[in-house]
């Protein structure tokens, strides 16, 4: 067998730092060919601050875990899903394909839990003020990922083509249609016509399985890269501590291993939900039939849906402008609240964020029960 080090000049190996001996002969041979040691060394020294709010750091990892589950279960579903026969193929997955119903239920629950985790991640980041400079980029890409996650949910919901998904999508797009200026154009573009038809699936399917995954993977990479480069944000009190009292743990040596059991628990939770609350399939969508009573969007759109009901008739436009302003404000946040440590404006922003959270939860519950 050829010695992997033999072709490498002795000087190249000697130039490697002494710590690389732990990588073994093959590892050092690779390093002498591909000089990535500075990158590895950077990650070796990456640490995670430890303070009373450290537990919130786990939520980002949980989102990634659910996204990974989505990729795997999504690929498995694609094996049997046929966009030309959407309902029939999903029915086959549910009733005939071994473990098909479990895989579909896992996909359904991981989607919901992923969006929930994204919201939790957003608000924990908000209240820990991790959006402030120099982390504007992390915040903005995170907001983008929230939008993409919701788009994932919206586009995936239609794919089974049962009456629930059909009418909920029709309601959702008709709300979009009411938006000023571009509303009609965007709605027509999404539907592929005046109404939701199989042509809409022709649009939603590639969006769901190609465009959105690529966008999310790209944006997640940038988001995580920012976190790696800038380190994890910590509360002001942590920064104010003297160096000897600042506790931290090694990211790859310790933190990542402590996260594994959390992901395992999330996996068990997903399996539990898929076991005892499997996703059902309603009758095939019939566009000519009247909508079943009580059709509503999925829970992550309910707050907006319910809030718009507070602006009936001509006031609806006002409601849309006000609701549209919320994401705009979220994007502008790092440029409004820049102070470290927290000043008066920072405290006001926190209060407004608390109100927004209460509004989101309250409207969702109201929409659920109404």
């Amino acid at each position, binding site marked *: 067998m050829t010695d992997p080090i033999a072709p490498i000049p002795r000087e190249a190996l000697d130039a490697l730092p002494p710590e690389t001996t732990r990588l073994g002969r093959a590892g050092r041979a690779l390093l002498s060919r591909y000089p990535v040691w500075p990158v590895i060394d950077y990650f070796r020294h990456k640490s995670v601050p430890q303070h009373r709010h450290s537990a919130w750091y786990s939520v980002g990892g949980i989102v990634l875990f659910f996204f990974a589950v989505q990729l795997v279960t999504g690929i498995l579903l694609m094996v049997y899903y046929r966009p030309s026969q959407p309902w029939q193929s999903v029915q086959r997955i549910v009733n005939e394909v071994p473990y098909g119903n479990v895989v579909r239920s896992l996909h359904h629950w991981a989607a919901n839990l992923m969006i929930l985790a994204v919201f939790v991640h957003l608000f924990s980041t908000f209240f820990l003020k991790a959006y402030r400079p120099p982390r504007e980029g992390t915040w903005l890409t995170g907001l983008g990922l929230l939008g993409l996650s919701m788009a994932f949910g919206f586009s995936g919901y239609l794919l089974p083509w049962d009456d629930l998904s059909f009418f909920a999508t029709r309601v959702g797009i008709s709300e979009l249609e009411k938006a000023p200026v571009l509303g009609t154009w965007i709605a027509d573009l999404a539907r592929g016509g005046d109404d939701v038809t199989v042509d809409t699936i022709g649009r939603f399917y590639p969006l769901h399985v190609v465009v959105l995954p690529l966008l999310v993977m790209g944006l997640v990479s940038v988001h995580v890269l920012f976190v790696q480069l800038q380190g994890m944000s910590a509360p002001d009190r942590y920064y104010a501590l003297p160096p000897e009292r600042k506790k931290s743990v090694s990211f790859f040596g310790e933190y990542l291993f402590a996260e594994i059991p959390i992901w*395992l628990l999330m996996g068990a939770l997903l399996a539990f939900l898929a076991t005892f609350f499997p996703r059902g399939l309603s009758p095939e969508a019939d566009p000519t039939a009247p909508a079943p009573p009580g059709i509503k969007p999925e829970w992550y759109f309910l707050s907006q849906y319910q809030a718009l009901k507070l602006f009936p008739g001509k006031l609806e436009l006002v409601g849309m402008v006000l609701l549209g302003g919320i994401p705009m404000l979220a994007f502008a946040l790092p440029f409004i609240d820049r102070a470290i440590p927290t000043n008066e404006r920072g405290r006001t922003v926190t209060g407004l964020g608390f109100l927004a959270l209460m509004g989101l939860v309250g409207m969702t519950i109201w929409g659920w029960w109404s």
Partner: protein
Amino acid sequence: MNYPVWDVPGIGAGLIVAIIAILHVLVSHIAVGGGAFLFLAELWARRQPDKDRIRAWLKRYVTFFLVYTTVFGAITGVGIWFSIQLASPEATSLLIHQFVFAWAIEWVAFLGELTVLYLYYYGWDSNSEPRQIFLAGAYFGIAWISLVVINGILTFMLTPGDWTLDNRDIAAGFLNPGYFSALSLRTMVMFLLAGLSAFVVAARVDDDQLKARIVRFASYWVLPAAVLIPVFSYLFWSRLPAFSVKLATDGVVGLAGGKLEVMSRAIWLAGLTGSLVLLGTLTFLLRPRALTLGAAIAMLGTAQIGIAGAEFFREMARKPYVVYGVLYSNSLWVRDATPAKLREPFLSRARWHPDPPALTRERGEWIYRLQCASCHTRDGYRSLTARTEQWTPEFGFQWLETMDANGVMPPFQGDAEDRAALVAYLLSLRGKTIDPTEIVRTAPPSPRAPSAEVKP
């Protein structure tokens, strides 16, 4: 049926029993397995050069153990009694009368457990070394006896073996076909949980070297148990009634239109979570510093989910009985399930209910409460509104008569008027107004199907 019904909207009485019982299983299994852990940890600690430090940690474990097992164990234990006698009075009565001495032993064992545990805990500093070790060992011995007793009664319900209502052979019922495999299985689960709960207390140890040693010691409880649990599960599986096995295995590809049946999914859930617990423990062993409180609780939570799956399977495997082959889930004795008796008007045999007029929706509601509500709810868990969505009055009327044909449901008790009243009630849950008299008048004459005969 001889007791006022317990009509729990949305959740159903059966699910309440299941939730309390599954919580109790986690607590009680830690209570027994933790006893063995205490005993061996006492021996281990006293042989270590830094025994005081390790015993200081062990004291924390005992504090957690004592509070957790006595408080939650007692609450959930009483909760089980409270709920089962409301959900299934007939079965509760059978179990009490049949195993009265077993219950007495179990309660004495419980009292003994508590007494010894308190002597052990409050004598921590004053007891001599041999006495302290003896108390730890005695605690485990007594606690395990409670398992030995309860296991006989639990397995009796699924595999009563040669026990019948005629011979009432206590030994045959207690040492039934599933007894020893279930006892071994539960003992292994107890050791696994003892190790996992030790992780929770070890998470707060600051000294990395001590933490690593405790993690290693606790892993010796989890890893062998995790390997042996599938072995004993298989032995238990091999003792199950053939029809339970058929229900679970057919579910993978065939039963009920091909869906992976909930019983099959529950087995899958238990197996998956077992593997996850194994992975988590190996992670702790590889990187003891990764053992944080959150990580340890996550593993205990994962095990709890697995136990929920396994216990759910055990409960569902009894379908359609409460005591296999003896008593149906709707409190109908199998010996009473003769065609002639089944056709008698139902409410005339049941007690503790008003007597609404025949062929009315109100009568149907009382039949629902007395025959359906121990497993189903109107519109929540195992919703009858959803299950009757495709029903026409005629279909429902005929279906009820032979609903036990596939072996999953118990036989319906009552005459044609009872069936019509129940159909009218169930369809009224979706806002349909049906006249039961009309159902009976238009129904074709249909002799009771042969399936009313007793199922094996």
